[in-house]
């Protein structure tokens, strides 16, 4: 399985993501700069976390309008898997590849801690290596992770089982509606989530609860 990591100015989790993909897949991902209008043939495109364009205007808003995102959207339409983590999730929402929006945490504070996540749907390309309802640990680090969608959109994504991860055991760090931590597209090939699974993939991280996301989507048996 080949993967690519999108690079934009202000991202800062790109090296963590590249390291995780390299360790798990055995092959270093390609990197694609924001001005690229074409992305090579890969099975997975990842938009990592950080603060693209300094969070100016809205988190992810400027990045979502860069040329590379048109290429990402085109690949997503063709069924290529796309994963956005943290700022990458914000960018996917701003680009219209996922429904809803991410707003300032209700606490108004930047949160950097570990939370618990419930795997709400194991019937997706990104979660099939988890057990249904499994509770995992995962770190979060963000200021704008408060997921919001209007009532009609929310009913639709819940009805279509697009919620992949929910904050569990009272650990919702940001006020997200319905405890939503990550959602997939209706077609199931695009996942965006606020927590950082790339930072919990091996013993040196203190656990590997994030690893199955990558193993699921890269087609590696658990």
């Amino acid at each position, binding site marked *: 399985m080949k993967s690519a990591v999108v690079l934009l100015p202000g991202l800062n989790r790109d090296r963590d993501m590249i390291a995780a993909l390299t360790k798990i897949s055995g092959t270093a991902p390609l990197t694609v700069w924001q001005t690229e209008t074409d992305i090579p043939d890969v099975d997975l495109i990842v938009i990592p976390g950080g603060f693209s364009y300094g969070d100016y*205007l809205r988190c992810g*808003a400027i990045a979502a309008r860069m040329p590379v995102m048109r290429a990402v959207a085109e690949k997503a339409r063709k069924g290529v898997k796309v994963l956005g983590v943290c700022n990458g999730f914000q960018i996917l*929402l701003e680009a219209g590849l996922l429904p809803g929006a991410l707003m*300032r945490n209700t*606490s108004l504070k930047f949160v950097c801690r570990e939370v618990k996540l419930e795997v709400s749907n194991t019937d997706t390309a990104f979660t099939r290596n988890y057990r249904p309802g499994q509770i995992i640990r995962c770190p979060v680090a963000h200021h704008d992770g*408060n997921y919001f969608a209007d009532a009609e*959109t929310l009913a639709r994504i819940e009805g279509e089982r697009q919620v992949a991860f929910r904050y569990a055991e009272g650990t919702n760090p940001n*006020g997200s509606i319905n405890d939503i931590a990550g959602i997939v597209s209706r077609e199931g090939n695009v996942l965006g989530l606020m927590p950082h699974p790339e930072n919990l993939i091996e013993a040196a991280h203190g656990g590997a609860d994030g690893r199955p996301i990558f193993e699921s989507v890269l087609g590696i048996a658990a």
Partner: protein
Amino acid sequence: MIRARITVTLKNGVLDPQGKAIEGALGALGFEGVGSVRQGKVFDVEIQSSDRVKAEADLKAMCEKLLANTVIENYSIAII
């Protein structure tokens, strides 16, 4: 030249934690009777053209494509 002021505000029903914090701070300053505060954004845009019809269409497109996130925000455009 055409000058426009675009105002972007959160839609009704969208929680505004920053507005709530400002509301609390106004109360702490002793201002009584502040029912609610909603925070928004203002963009002053200059367009090098005298074609008002085209400018208005462009400004609307700017709001739809970038300046507002219409999932959570409304916008209004005033030529000034």
